[in-house]
């Protein structure tokens, strides 16, 4: 059976999402075994990452794969090797799947053109971060009582949508699952054509709650965005685009892809509150990434057969 890339969720379907989430649940229940036994998974991280890299490595090992980790430091990448040459090298070394994190949008798509191995996009620039959105759906499904319970729920994505690969995967994936999505950001943190997704644009967390958001999906505000060019101050940002304890009175759940800026997008006393799904999101990571690796390498179908 062939391999399958996970590059983008732009055109994903409800059925595809259900397939991944069902498989992730099977992995969580321990019924998947070691589907990647005999497979080689290469982690190629061209950009700093903690939880995504660790989560993928743990998933691959638990599924029985041989794992090769490349990081920018201490590899040929540091010597100036091009993305394509690195990918071709990994291909010829026999990688079955390449997990790629890269600072440039479109890197995973480019890599996929130069290898027969499955390419899993672990984050490309401001482009896509498919496994993040899948694990978000997994943890939210768990919190609301199942995948089918997602339909009709309202999720507000709050923060730096302009620079967010997480948002660009979460928006289409959540919509495919039947979720109603709104975007909450100042115009300086939205694309000029903020209507590109055809979604409501709101301008504060309070407005999002008035709109009926049951979930506040908070994005990380990068430190380099806090210098006044697009956001005047942390105080003003936190006031309008941060979630505070007072917002929890209305029962909304809080999600965040991490790492959290405490006191910026989420006040310190909310991060680990009962309404926060943030720890669940991290826990969901290995199950979802195991499922993605199994589907990408064709191993899931071999197990099923």
């Amino acid at each position, binding site marked *: 059976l062939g391999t399958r890339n996970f590059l983008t969720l732009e055109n994903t379907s409800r059925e595809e999402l259900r397939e991944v989430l069902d498989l992730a649940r099977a992995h969580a229940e321990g019924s998947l075994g070691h589907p990647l036994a005999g497979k080689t998974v290469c982690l190629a991280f061209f950009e700093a990452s903690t939880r995504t890299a660790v989560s993928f490595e743990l998933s691959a090992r638990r599924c029985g794969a041989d794992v090769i980790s490349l990081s920018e430091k201490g590899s040929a990448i540091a010597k100036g090797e091009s993305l394509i040459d690195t990918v071709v090298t990994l291909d010829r070394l026999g990688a079955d799947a390449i997990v790629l994190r890269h600072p440039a949008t479109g890197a995973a798509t480019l890599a996929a053109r130069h290898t027969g191995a499955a390419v899993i996009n672990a984050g490309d620039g401001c482009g896509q971060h498919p496994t993040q959105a899948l694990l978000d759906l997994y943890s939210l499904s768990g919190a609301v009582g199942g995948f089918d319970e997602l339909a009709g729920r309202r999720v507000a994505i709050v923060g730096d949508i302009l620079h967010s690969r997480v948002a660009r995967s979460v928006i289409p994936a959540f919509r495919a699952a039947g979720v109603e999505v709104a975007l909450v950001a*100042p*115009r*300086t943190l939205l694309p*000029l054509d903020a209507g590109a997704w055809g979604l409501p644009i709101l*301008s504060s967390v309070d407005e999002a709650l008035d709109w009926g958001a049951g979930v506040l999906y908070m994005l990380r505000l990068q430190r380099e965005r806090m*210098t*006044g*060019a*697009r*956001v*005047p*101050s942390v*105080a*003003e940002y936190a*006031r*309008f685009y941060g979630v505070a304890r007072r917002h929890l009175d209305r029962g909304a759940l809080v999600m965040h892809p991490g790492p959290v800026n405490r006191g910026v997008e989420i006040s310190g006393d909310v991060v680990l509150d009962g309404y926060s799904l943030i720890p669940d999101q991290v826990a969901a990571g290995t199950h979802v990434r195991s499922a993605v690796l199994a589907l990408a390498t064709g191993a899931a179908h071999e197990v099923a057969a």
Partner: protein
Amino acid sequence: VIGRPAELVIRHAHILDPSAGIDAVTDVRISSGRIAEVGEGLRGTRALDADGLHLFPGFVDVHAHWRTPGREDEEDIESGSSSAAAGGFTSVVMMPNTDPVVDKPVVVSGLVRRIERESRVRAYVSAALHMGLAGERLTEMRLMKEAGAFCVSDDGLGTQTAGVLRNGMLYAKTTGLPVILHCEDHTLATGVVHDGVAAALAGLPGTPASAEDAATATALVLAAETGAKVHITHVSTALSAALVGFFKERADVTADTTPHHLTLTDALISTLDGMYRVNPPLRSEEDRGGVTGALRDGTLDFVATDHAPHASEEKELPLQEAAPGFLGHETAFPALYTELVLSGRISLSRLVEAMSCAPGRWVNGGGNVVVGAPADLALVDLSEEWTVERESLSSRSFNSPYLGRRLTGRVAGTIVGGEMVYDRIGARLGARS
């Protein structure tokens, strides 16, 4: 009668309100600070005989420097608002280039409280578009709006980087505040007077019209792209006015020009008198004609004075060393009436539209003599001739470019919210039944 201010009936004034379509000698009754009735033979507990006077909606000035905080020796809220009232202005927007700059919520709320106590007219706070007006970091516009800011502006310095201006417009749009822009490219504006014949002959460093035109074009392009509500202030060149016209259908944009750019030219530079330094500089006769035509046809929406008081030690200097800026409130209407209306360049009706109705709509939806509207009114004697003298000015400063000039038309009384805040006809006011 419990706690209600007495009614006032103004009798026999010639009411002119082009927006409301009123142009007739009739009466107006004011009650509880609002216009209660307009028509013949009205009665009230107090009456004011205004025979021979015109009654306009109060003038509205979106551009004034009341030098508070920081230079209260030049003007403060009490003196600035007295000057505004003496000029027939009932609403004024205060610019943020003070010391400190109005770039923090606490400065805004402090000004709002002082306005409530000290201002004779309605006054609105324009906050700074960027911190310190340095053109780098955006201000806390949303927190300043909550503190009472009415709009944001870069007045006095402009915004020298298009990227900062664009983000400022986008952020202001999110905040829901209009943006007043001072369009000036500092890489071009290196002189002290208009770069024209007078500068050439006098040997003074010139600031070319392109310094304004290039910055205006940039601002208009960005306004069109971002969809922000933008007002271009003190347009002084024919080309900038034409650019505004081009973008009227393409952007949410309005623009003003000043009484001095409509009535004076750079010919005054030959006096070498520091009094005549202003920014943007007095332009050529061709530009003066261009902005006059643009005001007449509505391309330029209204007049704003850029009232800019300066201490005498800052003006009584060689032109190159003098501070730029003129007083504006008290001479605005008389100068424009004398120079533009009496000379037939513009109609009285268009002048009232440009000083009252249009800026009134922009600021607070007011600017009309209609039942239910706040009673903000200017009573004007169009026949009075007077000479502008230091003693005749209510401002704390004296830097009027019209000093010594004989003007026709003078404000006789100003009413804000039904209260007489400026009164040169007090003798006529009495209790009658």
